[in-house]
């Protein structure tokens, strides 16, 4: 069976500023030849510290940044260049939860309108009417447990935990096969983190989703994932079963990461 996501030797290079941009090999390679696959219904946790290239890799999967080398395949389909219309169809199968849920929503659109928007963008020939789109969006918002009275609010009027629920609803409204969650618990109080993770697990079971969870929190990756890939300086330095990586880390860098997570609890 084709994996939902297959990344082969993907490279992302950001151009240098000014004249150096035109020099051969200028700029910085943030992702240097990463190969990964996410099997159907499985969760891959991608861990690493800031600057390791995790987010750039996620953006590369969606074609949001220029890929200077390699191939991204979503459900077996790939696109050739940044202008390839293929990206549009690939993105339909991928839901994205961005790092900052409030910033990722349009401040001038109500919650309900924001969740309905992907249905208009990706409607295709069988496009729904506006009223139907809003009904589908409302059902999804209810499904993720957001109270109805919040539907007409704007992003700045809801709490961090509620904003995550909206981000989940927006990511799921097209019924994608893969959801990329970039730091799903960052900036949340510990008392709310569990709620969001439970919601993700619940949705995975309900819609048979595959997840790519990007996090610098090894504990989150360990408890959410089937497999974990550790990223360091643009490369995958270790990949394996979640427990194996956490209990018996092979790479020196992973050992450091695992050591960090040890808490002195009395």
């Amino acid at each position: 069976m084709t994996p939902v996501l297959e990344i082969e030797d993907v490279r992302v290079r950001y151009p240098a500023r000014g004249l150096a941009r035109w020099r051969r090999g200028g700029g910085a390679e943030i992702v240097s030849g990463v190969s990964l696959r996410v099997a159907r219904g499985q969760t891959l946790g991608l861990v690493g510290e800031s600057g390791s290239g995790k987010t750039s890799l996620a953006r590369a999967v969606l074609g949001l940044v220029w890929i200077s080398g390699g191939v991204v395949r979503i459900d077996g389909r790939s696109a050739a260049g940044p202008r390839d219309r293929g990206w549009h169809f690939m993105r339909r199968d991928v839901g994205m939860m961005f790092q900052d849920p409030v910033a990722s929503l349009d401040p001038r659109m109500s919650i309900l309108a924001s969740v309905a928007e992907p249905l208009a963008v990706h409607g295709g020939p069988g496009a729904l009417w506006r009223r139907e789109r809003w009904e589908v969006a409302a059902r999804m918002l209810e499904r993720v447990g957001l109270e109805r009275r919040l539907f007409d609010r704007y992003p700045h009027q809801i709490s961090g935990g509620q904003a995550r629920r909206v981000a989940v609803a927006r990511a799921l409204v097209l019924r994608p096969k893969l959801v990329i969650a970039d730091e799903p618990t960052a900036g949340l109080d510990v008392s709310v983190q569990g709620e969001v993770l439970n919601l993700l697990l619940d949705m995975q079971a309900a819609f048979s989703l595959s997840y790519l969870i990007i996090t610098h929190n090894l504990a989150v990756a360990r408890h959410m994932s089937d497999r974990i890939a550790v990223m360091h300086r643009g490369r995958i330095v270790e990949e394996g079963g979640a427990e194996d990586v956490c209990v018996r880390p092979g790479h020196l860098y992973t050992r450091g990461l695992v050591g960090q997570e040890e808490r002195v609890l009395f």
Partner: protein
Amino acid sequence: MSQVLLEFADFSVSYRAPGGMVPAVRGVSLQLRRGEVLGLLGESGSGKSTLAHAMMALLPGNAMTAGALRFEGRDMYALDEGGRQRLRGSRIAAVFQDPFTALNPVVRIGRQLEAFQHQMRGIGRAEKWRRAAEMLGRVGIGEPARRLRQYPFELSGGMRQRVAIAAALLCGPALLVADEPTTALDASTARQIVALLGACRALVDGAMVVVTHDLGVVARLCTHVAVMYAGQVMELGETAQVMGAPRHPYTRALLACDLASRGPGPGRVFAHIAGHVPDPRIAVEGCVFGPRCAARVDVCGVVGAPVVGHAGGFARCHVAA
């Protein structure tokens, strides 16, 4: 002998807002002695930052205080603004959450570290630069002389936080308040900054207060911890006791939410605390944590929770173990 450095006596802070007064801190009483490191732990909206700003004398103009906040025996809010300002930057120093905005982006680091010492009388500019370079070395920044000539944007986040800590220490404070010092940093940098703050205990002739929502920071750094919720201290005690044998149901619930303390068990359901922090404008009948509490009994919804003391601390709860 341990002396009391900072004392809150039934201290409250409310903000004047268009709809009336909004209480942020309600009746906090606690003492901080020399040599102690107090962790203020709580969710957003618990009042921990307001309390920290109160001890740094940085409350905004619409804040009203009640009760007393005594620093070295003097009530800070009985002083005039000038008196409080003299404490700030000499006896009390602060490290803030965001090392990107704590420093002036268009002034070289050396100039800024010199300016931080403006309350130091009788030492010249060259001496202030020498002290600045020495302090940068002590907080683990290599080539301090070169760094002094650089601008903040030339440094990484962790380096900037080190500079901010150096700036705070240059004043020779008796009280160092760190407001969410690791929140804006990634895991490995945060770990280094926690280690550095731990080492700072030797450099601060006094006490430290660390505001955080991170249980790991409390466990690694603090001797005592005050768990805050809805403006009240719910539990206070030595870190080992509070984290090892918590008495308050809220503390227990918070600890249960900590993923890092979870075993590898197959159960894939995550602990969380249902509901949310109450709106401070609406008075809660009975215990403030009552509506979200797993251990609630009938009396919790009627009578405010009593303070149950024990050796070295207390819990504000009807059913505290």
